[in-house]
């Protein structure tokens, strides 16, 4: 069965990802993980995350994907054993040291990180023969190459389907190291590839336009049926630093698409899926390498992305069916009279107008302006815990 794999920067996002349809999540611990600025998990957090996921028949993978220097090697095995004890389902690693420690001294399942840029069958099979169960492919392969490769290996294959794109072969870039001192392969990438530059030839500007290497984000909606049929094992959404609303929206969109395709073997119209994604983000997107070498259409040259079509204003807490009173946690400004959409983890949704609003003391208020304030409002249908409340803008 195909797996939908989602990112999570903290426990709340992890729960959201799983509740909105992810089969598994990948998270960073506090050591040996990239995305140093993401709010990474303690071992206790990881235990709680695994318990939450396993109760629902889902999985948690831990990124231990730095490229370590000598000074980083100490404590790796101790950390891996703690992960094993926390009952994580796999680690995602790039360093042979971390991989071998896990394979030789623990029972952890090991996935090869994209930081190794596995780009051909030989590489995938080398790691599989070592004991690595799954390989995250390099983003530079097109969908036909992915299909061919999947047919030539026993390794489970994981492919990126949504989110930001490394411009360089992953793991092979030291722009950040050289330009800012921040080590890209140890979690400090400054995204120097997305900065603006002048391109000069023999000291003279080649164009009056500003040179950029930046890429539009990956969005693979229309390629999901192909990737499923190609026997890809896991479809990966990128973005451990993304918001709750982004995760819920993107995960549920792909979940619906995957389920529909598995059931009907046909997606007659992708438009509703695109429309749904724009509720959480409206960034310029492309198919990345899936249709071949990216050209100018896949690059990002100072074009502005549009704002999302809906604004995340609150998170569902509970609902009293007798009184039709919903309790929510405020996340963004809204007021009585705002048109809202309630989007439940179960997939149900409805729109309504905010007719009234109360604070925790049950005093009527007109405006919700305090972050994380607990509020109540009357709505005609059920608001589930962790429902996304969106303002229609």
């Amino acid at each position, binding site marked *: 069965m195909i797996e939908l794999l989602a990112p999570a920067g903290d426990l709340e996002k992890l729960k959201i990802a799983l509740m909105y349809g992810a089969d598994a999540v990948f998270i960073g611990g506090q050591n040996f993980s990239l995305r140093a600025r993401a709010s990474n998990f303690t071992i206790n957090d990881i235990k709680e995350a695994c318990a939450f996921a396993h109760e629902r028949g889902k999985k948690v993978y831990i990124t231990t994907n730095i490229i370590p220097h000598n000074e980083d090697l100490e404590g790796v095995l101790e950390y891996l054993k703690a992960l094993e004890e926390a009952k994580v389902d796999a680690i995602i690693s790039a360093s042979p040291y971390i991989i071998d420690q896990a394979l030789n001294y623990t029972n952890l399942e090991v996935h090869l990180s994209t930081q190794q840029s596995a780009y*051909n069958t030989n590489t995938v099979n080398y790691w599989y023969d070592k004991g690595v169960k799954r390989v995250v492919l390099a983003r530079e392969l097109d969908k036909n190459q992915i299909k061919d490769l999947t047919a030539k290996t026993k390794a489970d294959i994981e492919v990126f389907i949504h989110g930001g794109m490394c411009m360089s072969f992953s793991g092979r870039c030291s722009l950040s190291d050289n330009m800012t001192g921040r080590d890209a392969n140890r979690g400090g990438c400054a995204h120097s590839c997305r900065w603006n*530059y002048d391109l000069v030839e023999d000291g003279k500007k080649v164009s009056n336009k500003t040179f950029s290497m930046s890429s539009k984000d990956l969005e693979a909606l229309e390629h999901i049926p192909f990737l499923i049929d190609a026997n890809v094992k896991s479809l990966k959404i990128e973005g451990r630093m993304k918001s709750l609303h982004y995760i819920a929206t993107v995960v549920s969109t792909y979940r619906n698409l995957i389920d529909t395709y598995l059931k009907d073997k046909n997606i007659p119209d992708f438009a509703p899926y695109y429309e749904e994604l724009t509720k959480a983000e409206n960034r310029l997107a492309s198919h990345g390498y899936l249709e071949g070498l990216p050209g100018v259409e896949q690059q990002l040259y100072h074009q502005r992305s549009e704002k999302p079509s809906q604004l995340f204003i609150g998170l569902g807490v509970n609902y009293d069916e007798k009184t039709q009173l919903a309790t929510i946690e405020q996340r963004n400004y809204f007021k009585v009279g705002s048109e809202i959409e309630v989007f439940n983890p179960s997939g149900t949704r409805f729109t309504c107008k905010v007719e009234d609003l109360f604070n925790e003391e049950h005093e009527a208020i007109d405006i919700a302006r305090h972050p994380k304030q607990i509020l109540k409002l009357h709505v005609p249908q059920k608001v589930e815990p962790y429902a996304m409340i969106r303002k229609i803008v």
Partner: protein
Amino acid sequence: MKLLTTLYHIDHIESLCKIFDGFVIGNDQFGTRLTHSFSMNEINQAIDIAKNNQKEIYLQANQMLDDTLIDKFGLFIDAINHKDLSGIIVGDLGAVMLLKSKGLTDKAIYHPETLLTNSYDFNFLAKENILGAFVAKEITLDDILTIGQSKAIKLFMVGHGHLNMFYSKRQLINNFMDFAQQENTSHNKQNLKIIEEQRSEQPYPILEDNAGTHVFRSDVFAALHHLDELQKVIDYLVVDTIFKDDEYAIKVGSLYKNNKADEHTINNIKETYQESWDEGFFNTKTIYKPKESSL
């Protein structure tokens, strides 16, 4: 410690033989960031010249290779005089496995740019009996020396030149020219740089070749002042002359061969080639600040 150099013209091998122990050449079907793409005939010719001069010669095939290119690379290896090649420098683990399938792991030199940053990872292909590997450019001199103390294979490093810091498969200059609605006359040209607004004093050489787009460090990395320490552990030090010429190899190579950091000569080279030198990460750790562990 042996001294290798890249090359622009095989006619210059004889004169470079006075300084260097060997040469690194490649063909742009499989090599990238090359000084020059040599045809198969030229490569075979270079192999002969090197052999006649009791010098070593290495094939640079450092592209990331998809399955199609892996197959073509296999045919290329079959066709050249690989028996007299001293080694084959590859950037892709899949290429190492291809060489293994041909019984040529004893010629394989793994050069994954950024990845071999610690003693264990540097040696991880030793059990495959590869010839050697290039240590990462992003670690300190102390780390290199530590790795060298426990090396199980030959230790290569780029000791001098513009070090690469970005490798994209995309044709980024071509895409930009499309965006600017200009003809791309800059493919494979070695005279391009990019300048970031906040770092205008640091123009970065950029090269678009058939393998993709590459950005290099602004300053030339020079290990010259540390040869006494390096030669205790380094087996092969490479002078990469990309963006320069074979005359540059002679001038710079003489300094390294004689282990003589003659400031007058150095300044003369810097002035002639309009370049600055630095020591990369030899004395500067990259920043890595993990949070406190819960363990």
